[in-house]
């Protein structure tokens, strides 16, 4: 039955790709939504069938046929139904369905409306393959497929050169990670002679330590690329060039979390190597802080959310790295809900303001768009980890788990991350929805087809936390236990209630800071910023004067934010990627000169080859 789940979006994609132009109006969108709804229904049925079994028996493998069989190398097309894939399919199809419906409103009138839904359906298909695959190669198929669709959708509005450039960048950067992933898969095959999860995870503990670590790090490389973690993070903010539903679905809720899924799915491998898990935790924590700092420095509402996503996924990696994979999945689920909500809210505002994304040109939006405002605030509550919304349960549990598992130093840094989360979430909220209005065109509230899904997600953001309610022992955590085991239990570090109080207080501190600067009205931060900008209006620097000012008032965090956003992101990492691409390009240009068109040159190169070969033979003899 699990094999049916990806089938519906594939059918929708095939229909829309072949007969796209015949679907008038919004019909293509409804067709695609219907297909995703069907997937969701099947996923629900799958869930109930799993629940009807005893916990240890909750895994069903469906093999369709033998895919590749050559020599000793054989791989099946086989799907896996277990608690983890069940949760993932529900998230992908459930959140996906709401975003599809929202997109019908958002994309209305676009000349390539059917093609948009064709690509979106194809994406959902590959994503579902990714999360239900039973072996690494099939997972890789989904992995590359979502990358391809992400690329097509980022560049959907290719009339904008920046969109095409961003699409290419996303593809190239993530492919660097994919290379590592593929090498990891090949290494697994070389050592285990199978790519099936069952076999590989069973044998993982028996492999040599170095091998397991190498595999773990290579897989992590793939995860880092796909999930926009440092150092392969630069493509995600640029990817915001895509239509907002794309950002919500692919670059917030599902695809970018595929890396987390991979690490959690392969936790048997990571469990066998402490170096691997430490690397996961470290990468996650650093990215969480980096993303959080960068998010504070953004004026573009979608870029702020992109850095926020990066940061949140960092938390998920962190959770997976400190031995709490089920909590990482919990955060993945809740994040998918509230981040999709925030993106939809952002999209609603952008839509209402006729494609304005600069938060400097917003403000006071809650008056013009009351429903969007309320729903956004629900999302902001959720992400900043203030009870009783979902983020409180999921993110803070990861932070607590860091303490419980004895990672005290990391726990300290993670708390800083929690503060940053609250700061950037509420900064965006106050800048957009509160204060004086700075809009240039009259905003309007979005239609019901957009606000409807948002409302559902807001309810989800409120209720999803229940999945992790300690009183029930954590429904989700217990459901996932047969696959990934339990997170660290109380024993080391502070008591759980103490940890909860600390992180809640810190989240509130973040909220207060953001409110104090951006929401209280005590600082005329806009005027101050404008005045400073007038003093020194040299391009980029005006942007960062905000942060110079903030340094004086808000402390060193803002300086660090400016530094990370500017120095690390733009100069160093982007520089490395650009430099590598340029290096290959230079090699190509110089190499082309040898191709002079003269036969004598060609014969000479030929002879050089002959001499080389003979030299080898001579040595050999």
């Amino acid at each position, binding site marked *: 039955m699990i094999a049916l789940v990806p089938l519906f979006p594939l059918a929708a994609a095939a229909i829309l790709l072949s007969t796209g132009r015949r679907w008038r109006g919004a019909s293509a969108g409804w067709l695609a939504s219907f297909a995703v709804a069907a997937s969701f229904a099947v996923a629900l049925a799958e869930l109930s069938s799993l629940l009807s079994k005893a916990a240890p028996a909750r895994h069903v493998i469906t093999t369709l*046929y*033998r*895919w*590749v*069989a*050559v*020599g*000793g*190398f054989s791989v099946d097309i086989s799907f896996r139904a277990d608690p983890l894939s069940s949760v993932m399919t529900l998230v992908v199809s459930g959140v996906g369905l709401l975003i599809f419906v929202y997109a019908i409103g958002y994309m209305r009138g676009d000349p390539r409306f059917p093609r948009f839904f064709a690509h979106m359906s194809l994406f959902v298909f590959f994503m579902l393959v990714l999360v239900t695959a039973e072996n690494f*190669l099939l997972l*890789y*198929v989904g992995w*590359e*497929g979502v990358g*391809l669709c992400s*690329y*097509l959708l980022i*560049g959907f509005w*290719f*009339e904008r050169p920046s969109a*095409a450039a961003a*699409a*290419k960048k996303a*593809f*190239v950067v993530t*492919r*660097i990670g*994919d*290379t590592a992933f*593929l*090498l990891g898969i*090949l*290494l697994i*095959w*070389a050592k285990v002679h199978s790519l099936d999860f069952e076999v590989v995870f069973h044998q993982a503990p028996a492999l040599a330590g170095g091998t397991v670590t190498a595999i773990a790090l290579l897989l992590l490389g793939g995860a880092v690329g796909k999930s926009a973690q440092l150092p392969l993070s630069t493509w995600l903010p640029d990817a915001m060039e895509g239509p907002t539903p794309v950002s919500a679905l692919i670059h917030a809720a599902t695809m970018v979390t595929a890396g987390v899924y991979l690490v959690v799915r392969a936790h048997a491998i990571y469990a066998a190597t402490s170096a691997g898990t430490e690397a996961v935790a470290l990468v996650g924590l650093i990215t969480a802080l980096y993303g959080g700092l960068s998010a504070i420095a953004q004026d573009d509402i979608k870029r702020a959310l992109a850095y926020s996503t990066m940061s949140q996924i960092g938390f998920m990696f962190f959770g997976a790295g400190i031995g709490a994979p089920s909590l990482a999945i919990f955060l993945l689920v809740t994040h998918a809900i509230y981040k999709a909500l925030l993106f939809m809210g952002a999209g609603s505002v952008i839509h209402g303001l006729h494609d304005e994304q600069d938060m400097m040109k917003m403000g006071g939006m809650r008056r013009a768009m009351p429903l969007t405002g309320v729903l956004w605030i629900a999302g902001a509550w959720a992400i900043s980890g203030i009870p009783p919304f979902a983020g409180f349960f999921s993110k803070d549990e990861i932070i607590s788990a860091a303490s419980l598992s004895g990672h005290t130093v990391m726990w300290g840094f993670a708390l800083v991350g929690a503060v940053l989360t609250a700061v950037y979430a509420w900064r965006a909220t106050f800048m957009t929805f509160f204060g004086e209005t700075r809009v240039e065109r009259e905003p309007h509230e979005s239609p019901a087809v957009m606000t409807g899904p948002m409302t559902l997600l807001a309810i989800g953001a409120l209720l999803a936390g229940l999945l992790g309610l300690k009183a029930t022992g954590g429904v989700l955590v217990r459901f996932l236990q047969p696959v990934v085991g339990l997170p660290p239990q109380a024993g080391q570090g502070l008591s759980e209630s103490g940890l909860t109080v600390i992180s809640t207080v810190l989240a509130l501190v973040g909220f207060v800071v953001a409110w104090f600067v951006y929401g209280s009205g005590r600082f005329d931060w806009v005027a101050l910023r404008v005045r400073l900008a007038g003093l020194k209006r040299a391009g980029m620097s005006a942007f960062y004067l905000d942060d110079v000012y903030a340094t004086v008032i808000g402390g060193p965090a803002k300086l660090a934010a400016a530094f990370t956003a500017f120095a690390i992101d733009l100069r160093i990492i982007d520089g490395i990627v650009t430099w590598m691409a340029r290096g*290959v*390009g230079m*090699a*190509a*240009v110089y*190499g*082309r000169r*040898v*191709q002079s*068109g003269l*036969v004598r*040159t*060609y*014969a000479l*190169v*030929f002879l050089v*080859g*002959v001499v*080389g*070969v*003979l030299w*080898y*033979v001579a040595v*050999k*003899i």
Partner: protein
Amino acid sequence: MIPAATLPHPPLVFGPLSPELVLVGAGLLVMLIDALRPGNTGRFLASLTFAGIVAAGIAAALLWNWHGPTLVLGGMIAADRYSVFFRLVILVVAAIAVVLSQHYLERSGEYRGEYYALLLFATAGMTLITASADLIMVFLALEILSLSLYLMTGFSFRRLASAEAAMKYFLLGAFSSAFFLFGLALAYGATGTTNLAGIATRLLFTLAPTQPRGVLLPSPALALVAAAFLGIGFAFKVSVVPFHMWTPDAYQGAPTPVTAFMSAGTKVAAFAAFLRVYTVAFGPLTNDWRPILVVLAALTMVVGSVLAIAQRDVKRMLAYSSVAHAGFILTAVAAGTAEGVRDAMFYLAVYAVTIVAAFGIVMLVSVRGERNLSLDDYRGLARRSPFLGGGLAVLLLSMAGIPPTSGFVAKVAVFSAAVRAGFWPLVLVAVLASVVAAFFYLRLIVVMYMREPEVAAAPAGETVLTRLAVGLPVAATVLLGVLPGVLFDVLAHPSVLPLGGFGFGL
């Protein structure tokens, strides 16, 4: 006088040669008709050629279950499934090439009847080489296909680029033939035979600790030199760096259907012989020739992929991509295992079908003759012609090795063979090269999908036949990506390996 029956000669069993006999017969017929009935016979001769290829295909398919002797005509020809597999691949390519050629020649006004005869002779050379079990036969077949292709490359001789391409291809081809012939002579000098299986047997005598007396002592050192020279001859034909220099010029200058035909056909045929000679004749020396192939494979993949980036001409870009693919295939050859041979066979079949269709689409975009070949001419192609744009996109994705296309499965299979042989550095280079390669394939897709077209009109002149000629390969590309088992099952037969290969206790 000695009685007639006393002079011993090998029994003449022509069955395993039937596809070649059909092809040459059809070629002669085409020549005759063209000579006796000059005029506008293009369509008729094209149909005749197509029929000849189909007949040869049937003859080849019937050989799959050949029950006669496995080596016929004095050990010159091998009747094994290995040759049948490659013959069928080559004949499919040739059939597509006929359809494309007919379209091209009619529209460019360069039709002359010889073209189809040359195409049939070239095809005969290609299929013959796959069945050759003797170095003499390999050389003959190699020359048959090369000479025909030199002429076909320069077929549009009024266009300077075409004449220049033919000249370069010919000069360098003659150069490489000399090396091949030298290798052949050395192989004979080293082992006293030109028969592939015979060379292997003689080599085994030397390598074995005890040598039977009275046998001409073969020299493994000399045999290795011979293998090197023969390998250089093949490396030239399949465009392995640094013997690839002719490839971009010849592919760019040749009429596009000829490029389509030779990019796929020559590579398949030459690799078929390459694999057979190296695994059968020089099988006992596998450990000696492996390292050099590893180095050449790495070099080829990197140079091909990197230089393709700098190209603005689509034919030239595909030419470099073809160089890079030679490297990927060589990776499987270098593994030097039965599994590697199977993977290379799969890769070759997939590659041949993909590249012939890709050049076919390039030809259709050109509309007439050699126009619209720069990247800019592909702006918005997906909008102007969803069929051509979409088809080319699928083919490019396959060449880039992105799932779920056949190219992905082929690459994974090749990598797995190299991994199993323990060539980790080579696999690393291969994976990195495929990342670089993905970039320029993708660039063309970007141009087709994400640039505004300069002209709104779709390339004119598609016919049902050309649609089929490029559409079926596209369908096969997807099908073999989803259901590669169709082909792998065929390749799983033990008898699909070259006759006598790997029988030496590797």
